[in-house]
């Protein structure tokens, strides 16, 4: 490479901060340091969430009591949900990798509001600490499920009050990150970067940011109402006083369904970055990709009530929401087809990030297609509140966003730390994760089709075999994760020098040293081509045809 050689001792933004020691991190306004703070904290919460999930699965390995009491089991799945949703998967990609790479992709030195950015992380940390504290204080850990449905969430004596305060604060953090990203994208693009030259990662972050800004306040008011119901006994959802519990569900899902797109869109952005690089081809259908992200964000905001087909809505409402739900499949399918079209006749190098991208396409497609079964009211009524639903959303969330997150780790960590992990181990870890994943969640979908309800502590003996299969799958998955993390951490600390551009990427982050210097660019770059221009690559003749 004809670039200035970067030695491992040149630590860029990882080097000395403005303040010594840890204060150089927790008081830093550098977007990359904040991104890493988010990465470390979300990964910690992910690991806690995984352990809780493993315990839930272990309890379900046999009918009756296995390791914990029914109450503890309720707390386990509630906390697994709260932690994974609000503390890992929503902030995961946008707050960690978005913070790390959005300004670099725009050719900017930082986000528009660096101090607000740091404040967001502090809010996240406060929310995380409160959420974990709610486990050990008050009348015991929350046991409502992550959805906090009334009336149970108002009546239960467990520590729901603190948990909803935590969620409120986390929502605030999410809003401020989204706001910052929107303004940054509008204001800080380097000369030459028009809307047609944004990377697709930036496009999806932009769409996500709008959902964050427009949907999260509704979550804020919803959990604030739960708080007030519990503290002041207002009775807005209490039928005895004229309230309506269904209204709670509407308010909750008006946020929480769009939140699904906060989770998945940045993941789709990561995949759209990885695939062109490892196929050595321009992304197929750039504008279709960019606009389908916005379309998903828009259409996804209109479909919340498909979570409520059996709650007692009118048939007309069910019909309308079912139809709208099906519409979201169109832009999602556009993305999947465009990724596949990009790969077609590409010069493919099967590196670890691409493996995760491919498993994203595979698993997300299964998750999306099973989503249609839930979107159609007739079939939904059969599988509502069964393990089928749980299997489905784990295919979307974990198989989609989770795989994208791991793909992002493998794709970008060499950039962030300037060191490369062991690719062979990474490939093995990917294989183990993939096998364990499918064993676990596919078994759950079959269980659900056969009638196993979700969130139940006990079940009839007929379901034992599939439950054992799922639990063993969870162990294989966890083992794969351990291998992956150890390999990544070892790579971070002592891997060989990765160089400036280990994958041959064309986006702006690959034009600066690894790890990037504190203000990213010595001089703000002037951009003259789109982000995926591989026209100068020498391809094998058959690939060119």
């Amino acid at each position: 490479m004809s670039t200035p050689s970067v030695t491992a001792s040149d630590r860029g933004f990882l080097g000395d901060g403005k303040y010594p020691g840890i204060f150089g991190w927790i008081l830093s306004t550098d977007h990359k340091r904040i991104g890493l703070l988010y990465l470390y904290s979300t990964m910690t919460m992910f690991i806690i969430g995984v352990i809780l999930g493993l315990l839930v699965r272990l309890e379900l390995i046999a009918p009756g009591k296995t390791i914990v009491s029914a109450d503890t089991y309720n707390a386990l799945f509630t906390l697994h949900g709260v932690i994974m949703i609000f503390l890992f998967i929503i902030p995961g990609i946008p707050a960690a990798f978005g913070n790390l790479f959005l300004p670099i992709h725009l050719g900017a030195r930082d986000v528009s509001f660096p101090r607000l950015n740091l404040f967001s992380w502090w809010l996240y940390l406060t929310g995380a600490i409160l959420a974990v504290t709610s486990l050990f204080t008050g009348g015991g850990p929350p046991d409502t499920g992550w959805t906090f449905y009334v009336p149970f969430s108002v009546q239960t004596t467990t520590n729901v009050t603190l948990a909803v305060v935590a969620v409120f604060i986390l929502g605030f953090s999410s809003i401020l990150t989204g706001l910052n990203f929107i303004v940054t994208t509008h204001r800080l693009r380097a000369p030459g970067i028009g809307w047609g030259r944004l990377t697709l990662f930036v496009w999806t972050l932009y769409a996500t940011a709008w959902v964050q800004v427009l949907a999260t306040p509704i979550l804020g008011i919803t959990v604030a109402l739960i708080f007030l119901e519990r503290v002041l006994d207002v009775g807005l959802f209490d039928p005895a006083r004229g309230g309506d519990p269904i209204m709670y569900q509407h308010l909750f899902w008006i946020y929480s369904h769009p939140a699904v797109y906060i989770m998945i869109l940045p993941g789709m952005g990561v995949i759209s970055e990885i695939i062109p690089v490892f196929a050595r081809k321009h992304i197929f259908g750039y504008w279709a990709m960019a606009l389908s992200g916005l379309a998903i964000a828009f259409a996804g905001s209109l479909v919340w009530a498909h979570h409520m087909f059996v709650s007692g809505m009118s048939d007309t409402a069910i019909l309308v929401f079912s139809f709208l739900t099906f519409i979201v499949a169109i832009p999602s399918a556009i993305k999947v087809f465009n990724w596949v079209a990009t790969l077609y006749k590409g010069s493919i190098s099967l590196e670890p990030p691409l493996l995760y991208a491919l498993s994203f396409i595979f698993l997300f497609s299964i998750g999306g297609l099973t989503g249609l079964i839930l979107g159609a009211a007739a079939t939904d009524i059969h599988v509502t509140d069964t393990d089928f639903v749980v299997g489905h959303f784990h295919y979307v969330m974990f198989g989609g966003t989770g795989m994208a997150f791991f793909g992002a780790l493998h794709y970008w960590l060499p950039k962030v730390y300037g060191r490369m992990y062991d690719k062979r181990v990474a490939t093995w870890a990917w294989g183990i994760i993939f096998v364990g994943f499918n064993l676990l969640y596919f078994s759950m979908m079959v269980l659900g089709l056969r009638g196993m309800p979700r969130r139940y502590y006990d079940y009839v003996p007929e379901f034992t075999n599939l439950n054992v299969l799922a639990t063993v799958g969870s162990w294989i998955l966890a083992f794969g994760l351990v291998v992956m993390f150890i390999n990544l951490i070892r790579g971070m600390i002592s891997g060989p020098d990765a160089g400036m551009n280990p994958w041959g990427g064309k986006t702006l982050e690959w034009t600066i040293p690894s790890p990037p210097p504190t203000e990213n660019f010595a001089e703000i770059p002037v951009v003259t081509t789109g982000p995926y221009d591989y026209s100068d690559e020498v391809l094998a003749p058959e690939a060119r045809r």
Partner: protein
Amino acid sequence: MSSEHRDDVGARLGMWLFLYTEVLLFGGLFILYAIYLHQFEEPFANAAHHLNLTLGTINTVILLTGSYFVAMAVSAVRRNRTRLAVGLLLGGVGTGGVFLFNKYLEWSHEIHNGIYPGSPKLLDLERGEAVFYGLYYVTLGLHGLHVLIGSTLLGILAWWVHTGKVNSERFVALENGGLYWHLVDLVWIFIFPLYYLLL
């Protein structure tokens, strides 16, 4: 290291986006209001007639006056009339204080009469009236909290104008603080007719 980053347009854009989220926060409560009004027209009207229209009207005038002060403060700063601007901002803080004092009078009267969330009297009332009062306390409480935050903000801005951190060259913080105060005002302009006038 690098030149100072300053982007007034960006700062304004950020503030407007934030104000959107505030509107949506109250929007959730207005949705509840709309739906419950649809269900309980009679009880809502009965309960609304009971509220103190005089205090509500006075508070409307007070908030609008506060907004006027803040808007004038922005003009004053742009013309370098610092002392006037500080005075106007403190006037804004004062209107917030008076508003909250009136709210205190209004609420303590209601509570004295046994109308507060979860009160025994409320449980005896007709279904729907209890919901109205529930929404009344939640919505106006949330608005009152915003008045408190807005007043604090105006106080800080007055200090910044006084120390010269906000001046005729850089006043985007003042403009944004003013926008926040106008939002508090705007939300009240929806609350006032919905709860005091309409029914």
